[in-house]
Structure formats: C-alpha cells, structure tokens
C-alpha cells in the first residue's frame, strides 16, 4: 500500500513536471522565434509575459473583466511590447557586430519592465486561481487539473498554429526567408523590417499566453517569468536556438527533471545548480546544441 502510494506520488510529480515543461517549451519556442528571425536572444521575453499576465489578472480579479476580453487584451499587450522592443531597441542595433549588444539591450528592456511592475504591483507573491474551475480528470489514478488541461490544449493550438503559419502562409514564408538570409530576403522584395516587427509581435503574444498559463501553477510574483527564463534558455540551447521541436522536447524533459529533483532533493537551489551545470557542460561539449533545425 505504501509502495503504491509512493508510486502514485511520483507519477503525479512526473505528470506535473510534464505540464510545467510544456509551458517552458512555449517560452523556449518564443525565444527561438525571435532568435531565428533577428539573431537576437530576447532577454525581455520573460518580463513581456509577466507584464501581460499581471495586466490580465488585474483586469480579471480587480475589475471583474470577462475572460473573453481580458485574455485578448493581455495577448495584444504582449504583442505591442514585443513590437515596440523591436522597433525602438533591436532595430537600431541589429547591425552591431556582437550579439552580446542585443542581449544586453533586451536585458535592459526586461529590467525596465521589472522595475515598472514591481512599483505598480509590488513584490509580494500572490495566489491566482486557474482560469477554468472544475474537478479535472483522472487518468490511471493520476489527477489532471483544469489548469493543466488548458496548458495542454493551448500548447497544441499554439504549436500547431505556429507550424501552420510557417508552413502555409506568405508571412511564414517571409519569416523563414528572413531568418535564413535577411539580405537575400530584402533583395527578393521581402520587407524585412515589417517581418521583424511581426516576428517580435508574435513572440510577445506567445510570451503573454505562456505567462498567463504559468501564473496559476507557480508562485505568482514579479520575477516569476525571470526565474523560468533560465529553464527556457536551457531548452532553447539544446535546440541550438533554431529548432522549436528540439527545444520543446528538451523543455518537457527539463520540467520532469526539475519536478523529480525537487521531489527527491531537499537541497535549496539544487534545480538551478543542476541546470547551470547542464548548460555549462552542453555549451562546452556541443555549443551548437543537441538538436538543430534542418533549415
């Protein structure tokens, strides 16, 4: 009986890890979208989502705004922040010789948003209930909450939508061409500036969705996405900063590993330490990542 109970607890931990990993995967895919489009690692990605999530929950909890209004507003806010970041910050430095310049600039944008958010919403953690209430479902004795089901559904919709965007639309083709060779794309008539703004807007919207989904599953405070970014960056690095599929799979594995380590080890910071060592070893042994996009 005790063994059975323990097995159930471990299974529940693994399942929780899978769903958290899915959200990490969405964050990682957003990082890859911007890197592939503009060769800039967007360190403001987490804070973009955080601001959108806080706006969403302020509308929902403080103003009683319906979900059908609050969610599009939050997504639009994320998209606008992404677009403004590209136009005002990334575009002027896109021709910089060192990619570190873009990294520092987006880090500064993220810090600016974190300062604003901490002054507007404070640093205290808060509890937010899942968007959809209910009892969830039971699969093989493992309980899956409504919040986790929403994560699953959103992941399928978003990844499917991104795949369709890249594969079947003119915009997606323009984004792929610009990612492969911006100069050549410009020569064949692609408005690379417009594509870059669109790329960052899509990524910003993705950040908003990721943050809104993640908020009920973790401690919701101003730096909650900043903490998640390192996991997403690790997953994106596994994908060589170019493969969304590889990054997503790595993120899910990372979520499971994090959940298991957190369950097994009482050491504070064990997860972050393990993650840091993993990133360092990976970048030393295989800096191009474990999985790279074929294109």
């Amino acid at each position, binding site marked *: 009986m005790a063994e059975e109970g323990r097995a159930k607890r471990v299974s529940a931990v693994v399942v929780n890890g899978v769903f958290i990993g899915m959200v990490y995967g969405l964050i990682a895919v957003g990082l890859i979208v911007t890197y592939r489009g503009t060769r800039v*690692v967007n360190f403001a990605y987490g804070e973009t989502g955080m601001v959108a999530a806080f706006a969403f929950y302020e509308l929902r909890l403080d103003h009683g705004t319906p979900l059908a209004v609050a969610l599009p507003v939050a997504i639009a806010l994320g998209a606008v922040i992404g677009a403004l970041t590209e136009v*005002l*910050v990334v575009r*002027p*430095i896109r021709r910089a010789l*060192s*990619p*570190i*310049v873009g*990294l*520092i*600039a987006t*880090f*500064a*944008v993220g*810090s*600016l948003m974190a*300062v*604003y958010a901490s*002054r507007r919403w404070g640093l205290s953690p808060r509890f937010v209930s899942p968007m959809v209430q209910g009892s969830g479902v039971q699969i093989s004795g493992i309980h899956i909450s409504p919040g986790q089901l929403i994560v699953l559904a959103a992941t399928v919709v978003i990844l499917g939508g991104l795949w369709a965007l890249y594969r079947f639309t003119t915009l997606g083709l323009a984004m792929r061409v610009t990612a492969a060779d911006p100069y050549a794309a410009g020569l064949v008539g692609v408005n690379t500036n417009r594509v870059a703004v669109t790329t960052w807007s899509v990524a910003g919207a993705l950040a908003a969705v990721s943050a809104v989904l993640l908020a009920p599953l973790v401690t919701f405070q101003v730096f909650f996405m900043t903490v998640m970014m*390192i996991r997403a*960056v*690790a997953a994106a*690095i596994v994908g060589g900063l170019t493969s969304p599929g590889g990054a997503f799979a790595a993120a899910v594995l990372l979520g499971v590993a994090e959940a298991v380590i957190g369950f097994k080890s009482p050491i*504070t*910071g*064990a*997860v*972050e*330490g393990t*993650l*840091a*060592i993993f*990133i*360092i070893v990976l*970048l*030393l042994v295989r*800096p191009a990542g474990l999985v790279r996009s074929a294109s």
Partner: protein
Amino acid sequence: MTARDMDRDRGILPPSVADADAQVLDDTGNGRRFTGALGAASTKVRRHRAPWRFGVVAVGALFPLLFDDVTVFRIGVVLIMMIAAFGLHILVNWTGELSFAHAGTVGVAAFLVAKLSAEQHVSPIVLLPLGMVVGAAAGAVIGLPALRAKGLHVALVTLAAAIAIDRLLFTKEWLVGPPGGYVVPASEFGPVEFRSSHSLYPILLLVMAVAYGAVRMLHRSKLGRGFLWIKADEAAARSFGVPARQYKLWAYVIAGSLAGLSGAMSVVWVQRVTPQSFLLARSFTYLVIVVLAGQGLFGGVAVATAMLEGGRVFVSGAGAVIAYSGPIAVIVALTRYREGLNGLGRALASASRQRIAGLRGRTERHR
C-alpha cells in the same frame, strides 16, 4: 602620412588592429606607436602631464575627510563599488566579453573573507589578498567556458553561473552564515585599530590607488593591448599571434580579482555581509555602469558609478529615478551613443584643446 598609416597600407597592421592601437594612444596620451608587427621596435610617445593635476587629484581624494563619518561611509560604499566596476570594465569594454556573474563573484569573496574573519577572529584587512585570490579563482571558473564557447554562449553560461551562485551558494548557511549575516569585528593592522570610516578611509584610498595603478599598467602592457585587439578584431589578433582564448581567460581572472578585492574591502568597510547585498540584479547594475562608461580608461566608470550608486546612497527618494534611469541609459547608450561617457569625455577634451589652441593662435596673431 603617419607611420601607422604606412603600415596599414603595406598590410602590416590590419585596419581594425591599427585602430585599436590608436585608441590606446588616444586614451592614455602615452604609449607606444608600433612601426611594424606586434612586438617590433617602437617609439615611445609621452604626453607631459602638468604637476598641478596630481595635486588636484590628491586634494580631491582627501576632501571627503572634511565630512562627517556617515558621509565618508557612503562615499566609501561608492568607491568600493567602483573597484568591482573597474574589473567588469576590463572584461566588457576592453575584451568584448560579458559576465552576469560579477555580483556573485564579489559576494563569494566577501562571504569567505567575512567567514574567516568572524570565525577565526582575523582582521579582514589582512584577508584582502585572499579576497583577490578567491575572486580570481571564481573568475577563472566562470571564464573557463570562454576557451571553447563564443560571445553569446559565454554570456549565457555566465548567466547560468550567476543564477547558480545566487540560488545554490547564497542560500547555504555554511557560506553566508546565520540569517542576519556575518558580523565582522572592527579591522586592525598591528597595533592600529580602525573603528571609524574616517580612520579606514586612507586604507580605502591606498587600495584604490594600488588597484588603479595596477590596471593602468595593464592597459599599457602587452596583455592589455591584446585585450583591445581581441575586442577590435579577434581573427586579426589571432593571426598576429595573440593567444585570444588564454587572454580572454586572463580577462575573466583579472575582473574576478578586482571583484574579489571589492568584496573583501566591503567586508572591511561595512563589517556586515548578507546575501541581499549581492543579488543577481546587482550584476545588472555593474553592467549598466560599464555600458554607460564606454570604451576607454576609468573616467567613465568613475562618473557612472558616482551617478548610479552615489545617487542611490546619497539622494533619499531617488530609488525610483535610479531604478528607471539605469536601464533607459543603457538602451540609449547602445542604440544612440555607444561611445559612452568616456567617448563624451574624449570629445569634450578634444573640443576644449582645439578651442584653447584657437584662442592661443588668435592671441599670437594679435601680438
């Protein structure tokens, strides 16, 4: 046509390397003008510095002693931060590398010095060299990936290291001590006991003078020149025989040692160390300072540190202004004026020299 231009035309010095060399000359006013490949014969160029400048610097350095102990303490906090910022300046603006783990390096050295001082009853002043060694070792560990990874990946590695230090090391009681942090006894050196900021201030000035002098010597050395060339054009530097990987590692080690010195000195100065003093966000403050400072020597770093840390320490209620202005200043500096405060200083100095020369010329003509 200068000798440098002739060398460039003959293809002896690639343009980017020659420009980096010119930059060294511009920054210091002293230095060597290379007439051939790296290490070839050179002619010394010395700019005469007016003696009154040293007097002004000495008076300026000792001026804070006129203020009360609290003000001197605050000035000391700013100066100690400046030491760490010098280290990151060497790494970022001289070598073109990056480290998000700089505050963590300061903290590791500070905690180890504080631990030894509090538990073994050793004066923290005696442990200043240990702080440098610990910082250098931490810098080497963080910089080891620089041997293999490049640019962006190194930055990501340092970010991972910073988070690991913050979450793994700074939560361990064996390192950071009891919940209130380590309380370190007042510093003493032999029979002399330092019980006030006024008494410690000359020690701080001495430490700063030694650090500044050492780094200035580095700027004129082969290693320092190699840093600048690696930043200007790493491929060209390698082709001229500069061992770029090893030099980059040295840059991390030197940055780490200055961070360690800053951490150890903060233990001496503040006599209390808590993890909140070395949060990850502090690394970004150091980064803001060096980005604002721009390429060059230390004037920009000093001004940027005085503005940001001095504003935070001295101006009550300026927290919001400082918090917003730091990131905004970085964005403006990176997108509009990458030369930074050092570049602004060079432009002003050049303009004032031209104006003075113009006035002298006019005076001569009137005679």
